[in-house]
């Protein structure tokens, strides 16, 4: 779609303007995607060039360096020690010793087993003396995968440290050549609370994140390419091994299994669709109703403003599992809601809100409604602050221009709110896609979707991808590899949505700049 000049655009009718924008957005997508891949390409090129530079720098350091530097290529930290920076040098040396020791003791083994994930499984032998079968455990696929990955990380860390060691030698030579002094151990120690303080502060948090978040995720991504499940746990029953893209093929195959069971792909897209519907409604119902409540409380002439807010805010304090579990029981067949409705004579038979597989939308709508109950206090809080920040003169000038209350809302309040809370809405949307607590504690996925459950473990009509994933890992067959595939797909969906919205947001900003 061709771009119009500003003046041409202004002449369009309202509908045409919208159509134009929409058209521009969709015609922009291929370009955006192209741009994305172009960037990846550029990144790769840059990376390759950087590696080239590093290598040539290393070589030239070796060629031009003095004997201390040259020796440091093999004995890390030697140069530092020889030049008087004992502390630094010892740390380098220690790291090298630990690394070599580790590689000899166990690292080499893990690394060598990584391609096969173990060769000898557990074996049963008959012990005549005791008259029982004794199982001998051998290789452990799980540990091989885990420690294999760890070892690779350790090697990368070693290469990096070695590189730092080389660069330090070069720098030291340069500094000494220019007649300056090197930093003493004391200065080094001092710098960890001053100019290198950021490294000190980040050390602990980043270690935690790398070990407890990144490594597990990496591990689980790898699991998606294995057959790790309840019957192949890698140690006590049977080894697991690499299966390539088999699991992804299963996930995306539209042919059902034997006995007319539903295919994984069909189940996946069914659950994905509901996940997106849920995330959309959960995000926007809360957003608009929360804003509405906030505006109602903010309105001039409303009494006990603080009181209303406190009542709502306090409900946030109560741990969700209590309120959600309790509410889910309120909606049970023999719960309070049904009791009340029966007493009043409004219904003659108890409604099975979460158990009626013939009416999946009843459960779904109920879940969305209950989520409003959960979410409004929170959004009321968020929006209250922002609403109060809208400059009063915007409203005053709108009033003088003759805007009605509704017009003021759509022309001032809403654009302002969307502008300020845009990023929040995005994180809230992706957060809701992964909103395990609300779904699991309310319905645990119920009512059961019999067709979908036939092939892929128990799946209910209110199950999100994330609860489905959980059920698979905790289910009877424990198909961890399928859970991993779903996890990766969740990532892809979330990343795609974020990417599109982020690329969209600057345009929103330009058009409605309130700052």
């Amino acid at each position, binding site marked *: 779609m061709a771009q119009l000049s500003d003046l041409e655009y202004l002449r369009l009718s309202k509908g045409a303007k919208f159509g134009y924008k929409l058209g521009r957005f969709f015609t922009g997508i291929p370009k955006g995607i192209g741009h994305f891949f172009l960037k990846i390409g550029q990144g790769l090129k840059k990376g390759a060039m950087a590696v080239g530079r590093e290598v040539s720098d290393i070589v030239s350091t070796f060629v031009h360096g003095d004997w201390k530097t040259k020796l440091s290529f093999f004995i890390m930290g030697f140069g530092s020690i020889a030049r008087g920076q004992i502390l630094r040098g010892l740390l380098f040396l220690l790291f090298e010793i630990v690394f070599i020791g580790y590689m000899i003791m166990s690292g080499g083994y893990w690394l060598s087993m990584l391609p096969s994930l173990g060769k000898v499984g557990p074996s049963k032998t008959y012990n005549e003396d005791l008259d029982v079968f004794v199982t001998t455990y051998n290789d452990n696929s799980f540990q091989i995968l*885990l420690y294999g990955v760890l070892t690779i990380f350790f090697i990368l860390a070693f290469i990096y440290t070695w590189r730092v060691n080389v660069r330090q030698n070069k720098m030291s030579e340069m500094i000494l050549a220019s007649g300056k002094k090197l930093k003493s151990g004391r200065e080094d120690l001092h710098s960890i609370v001053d100019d290198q*303080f*950021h490294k000190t*502060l980040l050390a*602990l*948090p980043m270690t*935690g*994140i790398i070990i*407890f*978040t*990144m490594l*597990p*995720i990496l591990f*689980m991504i790898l699991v998606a390419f294995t057959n790790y499940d309840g019957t192949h746990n890698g140690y006590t029953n049977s080894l697991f091994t690499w299966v390539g893209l088999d699991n992804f093929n299963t996930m995306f195959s539209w042919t059902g299994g034997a006995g007319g069971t539903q295919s994984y792909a069909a189940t996946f897209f069914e659950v994905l669709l509901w996940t997106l519907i849920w995330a959309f409604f959960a995000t926007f119902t809360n957003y608009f109703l929360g804003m509405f409540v906030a505006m109602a409380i903010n*309105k001039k002439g*409303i*009494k006990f403003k603080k009181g*209303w807010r*406190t*009542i*709502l*805010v306090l*409900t946030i*304090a*109560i*741990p969700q*599992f*209590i*309120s959600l*579990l*309790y*509410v889910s*029981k309120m909606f049970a067949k*023999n719960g*309070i809601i049904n*009791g009340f409705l*029966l*007493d009043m004579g409004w219904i003659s038979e108890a409604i099975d809100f979460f158990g009626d597989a013939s009416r999946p939308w009843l459960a779904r709508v109920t879940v969305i409604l209950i989520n409003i*109950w959960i979410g*409004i*206090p*929170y959004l009321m*809080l*968020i929006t*209250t*602050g*922002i609403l109060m920040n809208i400059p009063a003169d915007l409203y005053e000038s709108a009033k003088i221009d003759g805007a009605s209350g509704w017009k003021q809302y759509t022309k001032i309040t809403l654009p302002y709110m969307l502008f300020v*809370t*845009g990023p*929040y809405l*995005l994180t809230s949307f*992706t957060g809701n896609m992964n909103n395990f*607590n609300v779904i699991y*504690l309310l319905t645990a996925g119920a009512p059961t979707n019999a067709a979908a459950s036939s092939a892929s473990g128990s799946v209910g009509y209110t199950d999100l991808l*994330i609860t489905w*994933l*959980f059920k698979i890992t905790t289910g009877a067959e424990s198909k961890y590899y399928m859970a991993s595939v779903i*996890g990766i797909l969740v*990532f892809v969906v*979330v990343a795609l949505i974020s990417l599109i919205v982020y690329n969209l947001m600057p345009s929103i900003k330009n058009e409605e700049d309130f700052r």
Partner: protein
Amino acid sequence: MSEATAKRHMGLKASRAVTNTAIHVLLIVISIIWLIPFVCIVLQSFRVENSGQVGYVLPKVWGTDNYVNLFQTDFPRWYTNTFIAAIITAILQTVIVLCMSYTLSRFRFKMRQPLMKFMLILGMFPGMLSMIILYRVLKDLGLTQENATPGLILVYVASSGMGYYVSKGFFDTIPMSLDEAARIDGATRAQILYKIILPLSKPIVIYTVLTAFMGPWGDYVFARYIAFGASAGKNVAVGLYDWLSKDQISNNYTMFCAGGVLVALPVTILFMFLQKYYVEGVTGGAVKG
């Protein structure tokens, strides 16, 4: 003033009064809807005549039997587990989050942007995925089942660096020139942190402590997975959840209510006192994105 304008003015006043009354009524209704479940929970926790689920709210026989019975179960153990986890997590998580957010807000180092992008991408993976491996690793370390609480704390604290957004947003609002003035005055980076920035960050420190404290009370998934099967390692969420399972609900429903009240009590009281800071943190965080 002519009669017509007088009428118009009256009309404006009257319609304003009507809307305001309507809004008041609406707010009352909203408050009732929001409070009902909690009122019901409290009422049912005092019900003696039937320990299962019933279709009415007001107990027929009142008594504290449910609370007394709680102490014959593993509930005190679960409560202690959760409480300890909450306290330790609150302290350590606050330290880690503040380190992270202060660094990302104040320092301009080469890896800053890549680091933030890295964590953004990491955050897009469902955290649940790492449960399986964490369980097995913790099991090797002997931190599961009965010893689940230290294991849980480790998991909570270790990944808490990812939640730096809100406090970084707060730190970003403290002018950089304060740091610069302090640097010229001769302060090291560490001195700037504890002499200038921290004293100015009371609201966000309290917010971080509060949210970190509240987290473990509501965690169900990880707690269940790591305590797997061992009652002594459960936290309140896992323990109470099981009381509502199909085979237990008819006996333990009222006890669940009593337990729920006891769990909600400390958190709610704490929250009531620190509400102001929570509101500040939440509002600021949303605006910063």
